[in-house]
């Protein structure tokens, strides 16, 4: 029998193996932003909380790295990350919030219940700045250096184990 007759079977087995291997890999739904290493887009966001000012691009150009937290009062993982953002604040991180599609009364209720680690909170009513950042959901956190350049993106809620890592990233951006 000619050996070439085995080629189709070998190919079939190869693809079967490939499909089997890919099925056994965990699914990665994260869409990383292509904006890392690039400056923040120009924007001005209105305040959404009476005791915190709004947010604009200029607020990130003061020379110190800051954490930009994209969140929403209607987002459940944001509740889970609240204590860890509080922890980051206690460790000296400056956190600026952008609330996606939110209402002042809902924001107030959320901050009352889960704490307010933010120095400023801007309201992004139509997710416009979220698209500019390359963010595909809430919550996401970005390390922005003192010149307003995006240095690092953390997708999903900040957990206890992410706190030291984010502090390191903030230090690196100095």
């Amino acid at each position: 029998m000619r050996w070439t007759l085995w080629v189709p079977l070998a190919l079939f087995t190869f693809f079967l193996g490939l499909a089997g291997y890919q099925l056994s890999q965990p699914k990665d739904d994260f869409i990383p932003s292509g904006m890392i290493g690039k400056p923040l887009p120009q924007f001005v966001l209105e305040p959404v909380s009476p005791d915190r000012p709004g947010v604009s691009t200029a607020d990130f150009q003061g020379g110190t790295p800051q954490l930009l937290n994209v969140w929403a009062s209607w987002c459940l993982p944001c509740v889970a990350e609240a204590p860890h953002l509080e922890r980051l604040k206690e460790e000296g991180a400056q956190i600026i919030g952008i609330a996606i599609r939110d209402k002042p009364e809902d924001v107030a209720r959320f901050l009352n219940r889960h704490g307010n680690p933010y120095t400023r909170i801007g309201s992004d009513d139509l997710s416009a700045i979220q698209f500019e950042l390359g963010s595909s959901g809430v919550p996401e956190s970005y390390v922005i250096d003192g010149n307003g350049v995006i240095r690092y993106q953390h997708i999903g809620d900040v957990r206890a184990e992410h706190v030291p890592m984010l502090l390191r990233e903030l230090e690196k951006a100095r």
Partner: protein
Amino acid sequence: MTRHGHFLIACLAALTTVLFAAPIAAQSDTPPAPYAYQQLDDPALEQQATDLMHTLRCLTCQSQSIADSDATMAGDMRHQVRLRILAGEDPEAIRIWLIERYGDYVSYDPQVSATTWPLFAVPLLLLLIAGAILRRRIGGRATVDAEGQGE
């Protein structure tokens, strides 16, 4: 009560729990963006916007285009597309703006790039191989036939 009865009640209880469970991933309850469900007045511009929206991937649903999805974020993306088309932007420029932020992932219209070239190269390669095999077989038979006629 019989064992069957218990089983049925357990099933009903399970069903009610499923039906009335609060959704885990909540959505915003603020109103949709103005151009999420509102078409542009100019039919030609709206056609450009719709054509583009059918080839952009929804970021939260990931298996639908933003034209097909009812997710809030897809609505906000449709708003962006229509606003930018209305402002005179070229549809392909809008696609590039999104690819710059979200990668090839966001586009259903694959472009040749460092990661996608095999998509385009492999079918060509297979065609060439098939062509070569066919030529050998048919060419081979023609010679045999010619030899047969010669006898």
